[in-house]
């Protein structure tokens, strides 16, 4: 053991929400001036643990020591006072405030704003130079890119003189280049003696930047190891408790006739930003086209336009018949009738009515189909018995059609959606983020179902932000950046680096100058969005 006290130490932390034990007897020690990773699957209890550390929840049991001193953290105020800063996964910024206003909020000097703003302006300038954290102090936050908004969050913590910085899934919304930049900043911070806790579910990041790493599984801390003494395979095993199959078994695709033709698809959202800027591709029967990209580059809009959720311009033909893209006949119901199934990215906000029972959800979107009617009324009895059958075939647990959707786990909710969309035998299936927030057992099942559907000769459009998933499932990979398809690749002929560049909008390999090229493209993208805020 070293002489210095740990920057932060947790002893025996436990926390339950009702019957759910989110954290169970967790202890960790993080030494000052190091980066400590906490890795685990979604729902393993990482965020709960950090929320306890930041005073959002009160632990049922356990103690917290900051710099060797036992510290009570009943609220965020106490956490800030103890020198703890937090960068949440979903930023806690006031969108229509300027950067400066966001930074001083809650840390003002005195009752009047003017002196506080002046002081913060000076401090920000200094921090920018010290850590490479430059951002325009007078820009309204809503005009900033995601990466810059994240910098504002870090600046907020540093302005409050945080010595311990917690980052919760910081790279989920960043391009690989932005993530690199973030890691350089974290490196600088470590060099200056700050302590950093990095929460993530990405093994690569842990290996790249951390000094030590703790693994969480189902609310428990399964191990803490030195990063240099471990490898990704071991960490993955610790995370899920068994050997992980990163590879999906599948035969080579046998594509048939072209089913879906998309030509020059354009979509402008409610804020007037053009989200799709001329998308064209063909999709054939019996193949999976994977769409890769950093979240927010138009993939969601692409799925939603094809699924009838949003209106667009351009040409889309299904089995040679043009589909209306706006006005009557362009809604989700019309698409389903035409033969397009849609597993949406966000099952809780779109795919399911959480307050509806499983059987009610089992016809959601198909509730006007003649088969579900009995005269003027819905044939609830038939729907219910059919739902029970589907739930059994898709191994939904518990297999009780009378239970509300909200009472199923994420994986089982996803199976309810998949069962509904697959069992209708669509010609085309749109799938967004099929395994987001889904436990590992269900992931394998869902992947197998998708392959099975492909082998049954269906055309599948898959959108996922998980590159591993795209690689594992796709027969072709299209990469989207800023509302366009930057290129299409054969998964066996490409690698993560090439796709990473495409995801940042760089089509030609710039070799040494990769970072500069990427920055240029990102700036272009942001500039395009700004004018509307005037």
């Amino acid at each position, binding site marked *: 053991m070293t002489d210095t006290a740990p920057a932060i130490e947790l002893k025996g932390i436990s926390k339950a929400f009702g019957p759910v034990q989110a954290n169970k007897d967790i202890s960790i020690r993080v030494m000052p001036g190091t980066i400590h990773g906490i890795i685990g699957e979604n729902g393993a209890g990482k965020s709960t643990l950090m929320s306890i550390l930041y005073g959002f929840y009160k632990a049922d049991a356990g103690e917290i020591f900051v710099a060797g001193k036992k510290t009570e953290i009943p609220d965020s105020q106490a956490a*800030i006072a103890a020198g703890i800063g937090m960068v949440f996964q979903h930023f806690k910024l006031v969108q229509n405030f300027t950067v400066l206003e966001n930074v001083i*909020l809650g840390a003002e000097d005195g009752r009047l704003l003017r002196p506080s703003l002046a002081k913060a302006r000076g401090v920000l300038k200094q921090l920018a130079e010290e850590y490479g954290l430059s951002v325009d102090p007078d820009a309204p936050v809503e005009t900033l890119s995601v990466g810059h908004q994240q910098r504002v969050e870090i600046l907020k913590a540093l302005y409050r003189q945080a010595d311990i910085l917690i980052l919760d899934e910081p790279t989920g919304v960043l391009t690989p280049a932005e993530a690199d930049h973030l890691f350089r900043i974290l490196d600088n911070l470590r060099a200056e003696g700050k302590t950093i806790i990095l929460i993530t579910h990405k093994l690569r990041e842990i290996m790249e930047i951390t000094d030590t790493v703790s693994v969480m599984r189902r609310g428990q801390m399964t191990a803490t190891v030195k990063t240099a003494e471990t490898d990704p395979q071991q960490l993955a095993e610790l995370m899920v408790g068994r050997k992980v199959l990163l590879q999906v078994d599948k035969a080579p695709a046998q594509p048939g006739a072209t089913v879906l033709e998309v030509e020059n698809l354009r979509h402008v959202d409610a804020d007037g930003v053009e989200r799709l800027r001329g998308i064209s591709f063909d999709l054939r029967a019996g193949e999976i086209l994977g769409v890769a990209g950093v979240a927010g580059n138009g993939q969601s809009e692409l799925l939603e336009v094809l699924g009838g959720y949003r209106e667009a311009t351009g040409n889309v033909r299904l089995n040679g018949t043009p589909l209306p893209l706006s006005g009557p006949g362009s809604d989700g119901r019309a698409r389903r009738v035409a033969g397009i199934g849609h597993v949406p990215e966000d099952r809780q906000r779109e795919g399911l009515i959480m307050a509806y029972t499983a059987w009610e959800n089992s016809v959601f979107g198909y509730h006007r189909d003649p088969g579900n009617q009995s005269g003027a009324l819905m044939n609830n009895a038939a729907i219910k018995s059919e739902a029970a059958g589907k739930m059994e075939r898709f191994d939904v647990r518990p297999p009780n059609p009378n239970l509300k959707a909200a009472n199923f786990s994420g994986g089982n909710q996803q199976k309810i959606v998949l069962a509904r969309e697959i069992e209708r035998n669509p010609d085309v299936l749109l799938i967004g983020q099929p395994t987001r927030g889904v436990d590992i057992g269900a992931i394998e099942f869902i992947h197998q179902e998708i392959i099975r559907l492909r082998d049954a000769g269906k055309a599948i459009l898959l959108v996922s932000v998980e590159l591993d998933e795209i690689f594992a499932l796709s027969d072709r990979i299209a990469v989207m950046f800023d509302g366009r398809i930057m290129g299409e690749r054969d998964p066996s002929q490409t690698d993560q680096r090439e796709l990473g560049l495409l995801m940042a909008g760089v089509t030609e390999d710039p070799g040494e100058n990769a970072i500069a090229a990427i920055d240029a493209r990102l700036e272009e993208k942001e500039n395009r969005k700004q004018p509307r805020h005037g």
Partner: protein
Amino acid sequence: MDFATLLQVLDSTVRLATPLLLACLAGLFSERSGVIDIGLEGKMLIAAFFSAAIAALTGSVWMGLGAGIVSSVLLSGLHGLASITFRGNQLISGVALNFLAAGLTVLIAQDWFSQGGRTPSLMGAGRWEAITLPFAETLRAVPVLGPIYYELISGHSILVYVALLCVPATWWVLFRTRFGLRLRAVGEAPEAVDTAGVSVVGLRYAAIVICGLLCGLAGSYLATGLQAGFVKDMTAGRGYIALAALIFAKWRPWYALMACLLFGLLQAVALRYQNIDFGGITIPVQVMDALPYILTVVILAGFVGRAIPPRAGGEPYVKER
């Protein structure tokens, strides 16, 4: 319309706009903090009753004002309890409090005064007196500007001037002080305020107390300034018009002044021209009665589509899991 009539109509506009303005600013504080308040009507009503009742009992309009403010702040506190502490539905709470005020005022009025739900008419020190501004009499003879100063600007009760001063004061508090920054933030992104270590609940209650206070002023002016005593349901929808003015004003103080003056003008015209023919065409009194509401709907339909309310409005704050 001659100059003297115009001045009278404008003078009456200022009087009628005053309770609207106070209530509108009250709503502004509440809604900027993320608490929607359709209970402005009820708060004004209960304040109107208690200020008139206490003024009648004590003979002091100031005592009445105090009682009005206390009652209005208490009702506000109840709204806070429902919508902040217990995270209930803010709209329903507002509706309930409007009924509570409507019922309680008559119930208590009947118990105290037995005059069919009204207070005795107020006289002398029980009402707000008009304040004559310096040199009003002397300058009265000056053409055009003299009468404007005498009729329109001078000669209102103190609450009118207070209401007008509340506009720059609100602007200053909102945009130049720490409290204002936090208040605006909590109505936009309470999670940002919470993680910054500032109490969301505390800020919202502060906003709600200010809201109650301003509604108290509005009610007091209504019963002891504009009129001489309380009658059943005397707010007559003013709380709702103030709410409409707030939306019209896009939750900004100076715009709120404009909106309230406009609605005040409408009421003043309606009062004056009830039964007057315009060049042979009779405008029915009912059209004048309905005009503020019709206009509000037109405004809501036309402009408000783009007025962006505080983002967190109406949503109780629950920490994210």
